[in-house]
């Protein structure tokens, strides 16, 4: 596996150990916050590693451990397990646990920031270690240390298996690299014939909508015949003429009252006009009883004047 990473070497036996994010998740009692995504502060980490390298450069029996190229703690753990040069089934989990804890100690001494999940896994491995060292009692509800160790081994085997599988997969003859599809595709000519569809409802709706739309657009409300006061004055002047007999108002207006719609307007306007003319001293008004007809005549004084 080519890991383009900086390498650091440390003293023999100092394995960098890491743990499992899975267990980190399980162990969030230990570290409630920032469980996974706290990244290692790499700059600082590198500095720390450089220090380590300088310190140990005279150590002939050295070991290289990649740090940056690892895809997480399980990856690192798998690599370390492989360095035990035994079958994964035979690795010493106890040893791994001890090495991991030593590593954490060492790293802490060098004040290297480390992701929280490493710490969480350290706690878990410490727990595992204790379970492995203490004999299992039947009354124990927790899984035995051996069980936990077997689980860890199994997980490492699974990851290794997937890693191998991914290599096999990517080394298969691949389309566009080793295997090719036809280079010149013959296009299919598609003749599209369009078929229209509409429902009867759509049709009727369209018809009704536009009929209604255009009708309302052309609709002009008939103009109501409203007499203005001045109109009424003129009309009344003309109708009464020089008549000096008492004549009911509605009699004068007879020809205008035939239209029902105009009736109230005509009466109202001519009544106002009669008051106006009376005020001007041109007419005289008389009503014999409440709600009886209003009688009008030309004022005599005016007649005399004329």
């Amino acid at each position, binding site marked *: 596996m080519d890991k383009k990473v900086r390498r650091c070497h440390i003293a023999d036996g100092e394995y960098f150990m890491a743990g499992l994010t899975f267990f980190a998740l399980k162990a969030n009692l230990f570290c409630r916050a920032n469980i996974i995504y706290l990244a290692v502060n790499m700059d600082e980490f590198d500095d720390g590693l450089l220090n380590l390298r300088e310190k140990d450069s005279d150590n002939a029996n050295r070991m290289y451990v990649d740090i940056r190229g690892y895809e997480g703690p399980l990856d690192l753990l798998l690599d370390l397990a492989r360095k035990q040069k035994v079958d994964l089934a035979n690795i010493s989990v106890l040893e791994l646990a001890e090495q991991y804890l030593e590593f954490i100690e060492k790293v802490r001494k060098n004040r290297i920031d480390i992701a929280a999940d490493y710490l969480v896994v350290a706690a878990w491995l410490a727990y595992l270690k204790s379970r492995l060292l203490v004999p299992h009692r039947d009354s124990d509800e927790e899984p035995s240390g051996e069980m936990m160790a077997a689980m860890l081994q199994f997980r490492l085997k699974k990851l290794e298996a997937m890693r191998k599988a991914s290599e096999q997969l990517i080394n298969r003859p691949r389309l566009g690299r080793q295997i090719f599809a036809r280079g010149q595709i013959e296009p299919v000519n*598609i003749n599209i*014939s369009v078929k*229209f*569809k509409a429902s009867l409802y*759509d049709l009727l709706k369209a018809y009704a909508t536009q009929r209604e739309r255009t009708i309302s657009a052309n609709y002009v409300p008939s103009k109501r015949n409203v007499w203005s006061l001045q109109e009424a004055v003129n009309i009344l002047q003309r109708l009464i003429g020089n008549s000096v007999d008492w004549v009911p108002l509605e009699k004068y207006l007879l020809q205008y009252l035939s239209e029902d719609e105009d009736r109230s307007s005509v009466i109202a306007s001519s009544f106002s006009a009669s008051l106006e003319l009376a005020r001007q001293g041109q007419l005289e008004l008389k009503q014999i009883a409440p709600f009886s007809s209003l009688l009008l005549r030309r004022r005599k004084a005016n007649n005399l004047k004329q």
Partner: protein
Amino acid sequence: MSDELFDNEEKLELEERNLRIIEALIFAADKPVSAKDLQPYLSDGADIEHLLKKLAALYENRGVNLVRREDEWAFRTAEDLAFLLRKEDEQTRPLSRASLETLAIIAYHQPTTRAEIEEIRGVSTGKGTLDILLETGWIKMRGRRRTPGRPITYGTTKEFLDHFSLSSIKDLPGLEELKGAGLLSNKLPPNIQIPVPFDGALRDDEDHLEEEDLQGKIVEEEFLLQNSVPNEEK
């Protein structure tokens, strides 16, 4: 003798291999391949021309042929199977609102002219609208109205009745039915009328279409349209 046999077998094997290589190269190439392009991949002294002809013969009666284009070679679908590469596709599309409205007016007011349609819709009818409707097969040109400008009259077809599941054009709902269905409001002025559509034979005021009409040339002109708008307010 056995040596010769062995040689021959080896030769055949080599040829077979060369053929496979040519096959793969031409297949994978994104353009026709010349003999010169193939040369580097073949065994020394291979007779490319011979190999190509042999391969072409192998594919001669197949669904795909190895064909020569000048001095280049490519795989092509056999000519007699070209029909496979044509696809008839049918698309259903809803009518646009303008088309639908125009269709509705033609249905109710038929026989009607373009000018009358425009007058009812209150907008001019785009040239495309009637074309699309003619294309649907739901409307047809009936004849020409005997009025100045001799405008073409439009009406609906049997396909129209079929599509809208009407047994006759008289099944189109009338004013009261439209109101009853809530399609028309009750506030319409009393003078609104919905005509009784007619899709029978030519009427008295219609002439037969002329030769050129049937050829699909609609010879109505703009000024004719404008002049023939009847004045409904009268």
